[in-house]
C-alpha cells in the first residue's frame, strides 16, 4: 500500500467521522426543538424524575452546554439517556438487545442477496436475449418497483395467512424466513441487474478473447476472468445495500413482529420515545456511514485501475 492509498483512506475516515458528528448534531438540535425537549416530551413526568434528569443532563443549562454533555456521554460511555416508555431501561441497552436479532437478519439477507444476485446476473448475461434472460429481467424489474413493506405484507398474506406454511410471528427461528426473504429480494434484484450489465461489459473485453484463444476452459474463464472483474461494481453497492436493509428492517420487523432494532425504532416513533429515537438514529446512521466507508475503501483497493484523487 503506497502513501497515496493511505492518504485516501485517511481522508475518507475523517469524512465519515464528520458525517457522524453532523448526524448527532442534527438529531440533538432537532429533538430539542420539541416543546419540552426530548427527555421530557409532552408527557407529564413526576417531579423527582424531572429533577434527576435535569441534574444528569443539565436540562436547565444553555443548549450548547447540554449538547457538549450529550456528545461527551455518547463518545465516552455510549450514554443515550433513559427510555421514556420502557421504565428503568437505558436506550443503549434496548438498542444493543435489538441489534443482536437485526444484525443476524441483515447479514443472512445480504448473503442471500449477494449469492443469488451474482448467480442470476451471470446466468442472464451468459444466456443473453434468451427466454431465461428475459424472465430474469422482468422479475427483477417488478421486485425493484415494489416497496419493501408491500412485499413483506403480501408475502405474509400468501405464505403465513393463506397457505400457513410458515409462522407469521418473527420471534422464532422459522419465523425469520419471511423477513429474510423480504429484505433480500430488492438487493438481490438490484445485484442481478448490476452483475448482468457489468458481465456483458467484461465479456466483450479483449482479455476474455485472449483467454479463450489460449484454450482456457469456459467455466475457468467465467470464474477466473469474467466474474472477478464484473464483481467490482457490485462492491460499490455494498453501502447502499446495507442502508436499504437497515431502513427496510424498520417496516419488515413491524410486519412480522421481529424483536429487533427496527421494530423498537418504529415503536419509539409512534410512541414518541424521543431518547430512543435519538439513540437509534445515531447508532443506525453510524452503521450505514461505516459500511459506506468500508465499501468505498474496498472498491479502491480491489481495482488497481481506479486512481486516487
Amino acid at each position, binding site marked *: 500500500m503506497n502513501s497515496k492509498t493511505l492518504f485516501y483512506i485517511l481522508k475518507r475516515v475523517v469524512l465519515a467521522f464528520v458525517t457522524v458528528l*453532523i448526524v448527532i448534531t*442534527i438529531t440533538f438540535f432537532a429533538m430539542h426543538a420539541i416543546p419540552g425537549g426530548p427527555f421530557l416530551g409532552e408527557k407529564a413526568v413526576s417531579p423527582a424524575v424531572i429533577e434527576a434528569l435535569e441534574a444528569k443532563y443539565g436540562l436547565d443549562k444553555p443548549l450548547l452546554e447540554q449538547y457538549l454533555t450529550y456528545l461527551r456521554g455518547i463518545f465516552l460511555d455510549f450514554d443515550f439517556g433513559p427510555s421514556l416508555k420502557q421504565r428503568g431501561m437505558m436506550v443503549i441497552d434496548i438498542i444493543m438487545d435489538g441489534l443482536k436479532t437485526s444484525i443476524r437478519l441483515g447479514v443472512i439477507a445480504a448473503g442471500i442477496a449477494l449469492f443469488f444476485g451474482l448467480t442470476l446476473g451471470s446466468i442472464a448475461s451468459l444466456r443473453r436475449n434468451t427466454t431465461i434472460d428475459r424472465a430474469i429481467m422482468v422479475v427483477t424489474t417488478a421486485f425493484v418497483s415494489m416497496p419493501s413493506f408491500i412485499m413483506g*405484507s403480501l408475502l405474509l398474506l400468501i405464505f403465513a395467512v393463506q397457505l400457513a406454511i410458515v409462522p407469521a410471528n418473527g420471534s422464532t427461528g422459522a419465523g425469520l424466513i419471511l423477513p429474510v426473504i423480504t429484505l433480500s429480494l430488492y438487493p438481490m434484484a438490484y445485484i442481478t441487474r448490476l452483475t448482468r450489465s457489468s458481465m456483458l461489459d467484461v465479456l466483450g473485453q479483449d482479455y476474455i478473447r485472449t483467454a479463450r484463444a489460449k484454450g482456457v476452459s469456459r467455466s475457468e474463464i467465467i470464474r477466473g476472468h469474467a466474474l472477478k472483474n464484473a464483481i467490482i461494481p457490485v462492491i460499490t453497492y455494498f453501502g447502499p445495500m446495507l442502508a436499504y436493509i437497515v431502513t427496510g428492517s424498520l417496516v419488515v420487523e413491524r410486519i412480522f413482529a421481529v424483536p429487533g432494532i427496527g421494530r423498537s425504532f418504529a415503536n419509539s*416513533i409512534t410512541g414518541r420515545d424521543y431518547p430512543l429515537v435519538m439513540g437509534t438514529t445515531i447508532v443506525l446512521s453510524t452503521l450505514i456511514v461505516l459500511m459506506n466507508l468500508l465499501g468505498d475503501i474496498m472498491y479502491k483497493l480491489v481495482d488497481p485501475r481506479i486512481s486516487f484523487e
Partner: protein
Amino acid sequence: MMKKNPLSLQVDLDDFIPATKEDKEYMVQMRASSTFFRDGARRLSRNKVAMFSLIVIVLITLSSIFLPMFWPYSYEQQLGVQSGKRVDPSYNNLAPFEYGSTEQERMDAGESIFPHIFGTDSAGRDYFIRVIYGTRISLAVGFFASIIVLMIGLVVGSVAGYFGGKVDLIIMRIVDIIYSLPDTLMVILLASILRVTLGDRLEGTALESIGSNIISLFIVFALLYWVSMARLVRGQILSLREEEYVLSARATGAKGPWIIRKHLLPNSISVIIISTALQIPSAIFTESYLSFLGLGVNAPMPSLGSLASDALNGINSYSYRLVVPAVSISLIVLSLNLLGDGLRDAFDPKLNN
C-alpha cells in the same frame, strides 16, 4: 458574349431568367424538418412498454381526480353514523358488494343503492373511495415533492455551475455533506419532529387544511432531496458553459442570468425533465414508506401507505383491503419507472445509439 468591364454596374440579365422546373423541384422539401421534441415524441410513441405505462398513469390520475366528484360516498363519511341516531354497527367491515341494515331496507323497498365495491372499513367508510382518494394524495405528494426538488436543485445547481470558484466550492461541500447523510433515517427523524412542532404553528393559517404531516413531508423533501438534482444541473452547466455559443453570447454582452436562462437551461432541459420524472416514483415510495410507519398524512385522510398499514391489523379476515392499496402502489411506481426509462431512451441525445 460581350466581355464585361469588372467595374461596370451593368446588370447581368442571365441572373433574371425565370427558374426552370428542375430548379424548382430542387427546392421542394422532401420531408418536413423535425424538431428535437417531435423526434423524441415519435421515439417514445414507438416504445410500447412506455406508452402502455403512460396510458395506465393517465387513467389512474384522471380517475383519482374525477371519481371522488361523482361518487355518492366521501372518504371520511362514516356510513353508520347519522345525526340524531345511534351508531349503526352493521355498516362496519362490510364485505365487497354488501349493504348496511338501513340500506338493505331501502333496497327491499325498491330503491337502488350505489354498491360498496370494496366494502367498508372498520369505521364504516366506503373503502373504494378511500383507495381512490389515497391514490390522489400519493400522486399529489409525489408530484409536488418532485417540483419542489426540481426548483431548488435547478436554482442551486445553476448558480454553482455558472459562477464556479468559491461559490461552487461552498455549495458542493454542503451538497457532499447532505449526500453522505443516511437519507431515510434523517427523513424519519425530521418528519417525526416537524409534525409535533408544526402542529400548533399552522393553526389558523391557509396551510392548516393540508395538514401538518404533508407540510412536514414537503419540508423534508426540500431539505434533503435537492442535492442529486443540484449535482446533475451543475454537471450539465459545467460542460455546456465551455461551448462556443456561450462564449459568443458573452462576447455580445449577455449577462449571467440571461445566459443561464436562454442558453444553458434549454440545452440541459431533457436530462432535467427525465430526472424529475424519475423523482416522482421515488417520492411516492418515500411517502408510502413514512405513512406505513405512521408518519404520513393526518387521519382521517388516507394515503396508499396508511391504507396498507391499517389493513395489516385485519389481515386474517379482510386480506383484500391489503391487496388493493398494495397493488395500486406497485402499479403506479412500476409504470412511472417504466415511463421514465422510456423518456430517457427517447429524449436523451447522448443515449441515441
